């Protein structure tokens, strides 16, 4: 769709920028400096509060997730399925859920929960509950990170009223920077999945009289099952 006017408009803007900056296209040493910065991105000031041993990172993650209105349960891998079923029962929610299709959730004993009806696939407007894994958890703010793909449709994060996330302790990192490192390791430098969602608690709005109400457009409830290792 790059038609001729687009090309002319592109030149107008880029030349306008260069004219204002009193230079031509970046070249020589100047360009090398900028390219080097892009190749080896410098980190900003380190945030000390998440610079902790792994067990404390997990605790900090849970603390901030709860401060942001999520609920957290820490269980052994063998108890993940029963915790999910029990959460739904405790909250009077239907025992049926849309679950992410990928293998990440296969290892848990879903068959033990006879009453729990699971459908693997993307999220639909009619789903009440979704169950997904997560790419990482950020201890600094209690934030979940999900990466889209065939194993994790984005709609599961957004459409259901209740989002249950199964997060392995080992996937809890300090800050955003640690997530970027993991993304580059998984997808390659400069490469990203279509969507990376970072989600901190349930959906909310303060648009009426600056008072926070949960469940604006996304999930009203978020329950994080942290899997002990």
């Amino acid at each position: 769709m790059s038609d001729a006017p687009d090309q002319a408009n592109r030149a107008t803007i880029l030349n306008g920028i260069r004219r204002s900056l009193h230079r031509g296209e970046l070249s020589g040493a100047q360009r090398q400096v900028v390219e080097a910065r892009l190749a080896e991105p410098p980190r900003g000031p380190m945030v000390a509060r998440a610079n902790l041993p792994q067990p404390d990172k997990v605790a900090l993650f849970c603390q901030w997730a709860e401060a942001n209105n999520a609920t957290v349960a820490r269980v052994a891998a063998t108890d993940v399925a029963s915790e999910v079923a029990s959460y739904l029962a405790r909250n009077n929610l239907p025992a049926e859920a849309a679950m992410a299709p990928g293998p990440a959730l296969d290892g848990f004993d879903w068959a033990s929960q006879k009453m729990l009806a699971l459908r693997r696939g993307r999220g639909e407007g009619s789903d009440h509950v979704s169950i997904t894994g997560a790419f990482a958890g950020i201890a600094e703010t209690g934030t979940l990170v999900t990466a889209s793909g065939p194993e994790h449709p984005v709609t599961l994060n957004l459409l259901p009223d209740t989002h249950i996330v199964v997060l392995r302790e080992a996937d809890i990192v300090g800050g955003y920077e640690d997530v970027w490192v993991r993304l580059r390791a998984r997808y390659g430098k400069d490469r990203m999945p279509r969507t990376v969602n970072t989600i901190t608690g349930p959906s909310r709005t303060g648009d009426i009289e600056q008072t926070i109400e949960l469940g604006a457009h996304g999930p009203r409830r978020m329950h994080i099952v942290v899997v002990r290792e």
Partner: protein
Amino acid sequence: MQSTAHDFKDNAHAALADPNLQDSLAKLKVGFSERRRQAAERLPEFEALRDRARDIKDHALANLDFYLEEFERKVTGVGGHVHWAPTAEDARRIIADLCRSVGARTIAKSKSMVSEEIALNDHLEALGIAPIETDLGEYIIQLRHEPPSHIIAPAVHLTKDQVADTFLEHHAKLGFTRRLTERNDLVAEARHVLRQKFIDADVGLTGANFLVAETGSSMLVTNEGNADLSNTLPKMHIVLASIEKVIPTLEDAAVLLRVLARSATGQESSAYTTLNTGPKRPGDLDGPEHYHVVILDNGRSSVLGTEMQDMLRCIRCGACMNHCPVYGAIGGHAYGWVYPGPIGAVLTPQLLGVEEASNLPNASTFCGRCESVCPVRIPLPGLMRHWREREFERHLTPRAVRQGLALWSFIARRPRLYKSLTGLANRMLALFGRADGRYATLPLAGGWTRFRDFPAPQPGGTFHAQWKRRRP
């Protein structure tokens, strides 16, 4: 949107007399600013992060052409398209053409101040395409045919009761015939009504908080999740962003995110921060088939390299307006255009011209709170002073003000005259009676004393006289 910035004085008078608005503004004064203070105090690195945020944006602006080209290369590499719009008209044309290419009848919009800047909704409606605002605040004001009054809380000027009336008026035909009184019921009703609109929409249009050159990602920060539904459900996702939104890397984004949410709402993190990179991939079960980024200049490139360049660092958090005593007294609509408050007083004269917006930079006491809270340390009072100087140079200042300033400058440059006249004025004020310590009325100062008392000079003579006596 159509600017009424030239009517600032009348707008401000009307705002001061509007009881609903004054109720809403009273809440603003204690809400955002107190929460920001607490969030900043919780993070010992906050000031260092602000310094780095400023440096990152300065670096990006100094190499803006490079990073925009890099961004474009990455978007193209994953099957997306970048479109360049030098003017608002170009952007409107590009977006309308994209909508028509998929036969769009409705588009789900997530809050975008740039789309307000280019008056996109009116243009699309004229072409028979219905834009539906999905951010709750934007949705409320779209129903009321009002412009936003705040860049992150567009309906902050309204009370809950006004929202309830608006919903009853517009939702009754959808079967919601009960007037609601609770905030959570209002949110639930809007959620229900808008959910179907998301599902029906052909195009999702969002803004962007940042464009990341390293990966070609557009970054969106919201609390509601509406931007994510907008970029996930429809078959086409259009991102509309201005040129200064581009930043180099994900590491830079991490710094900016840490100051953005805390400065805006006092949150440690907004609920949703999303990176979108191109259209649906092979095997994906959801996501848009088409992904387009429209990059708008609209006068910004001409600000680069000038003494006004600092305004382009703005990350649109709204902290300057949350902390501004003038905004707190009159709200956002009085400023007459998309960007209110201190940043509006700096941007609007740039984007619309000094003639249209000359009053805005004067609507400041230069108390400096805006600069003290700006996450990217934009010297807002200094930039407003610049516009005042341009206004004066162009003879846009009212005659009475110019004559007054000319008289003052004549006197101030003659120290003996200045001393004798100020001494005389001091004695005259004493004659009017300084016993109360203030005057309820004073000749030639009716404009002041109509709303507040004028402080009486304290005994001991003028500053000059006291200085002479006390100097060692």
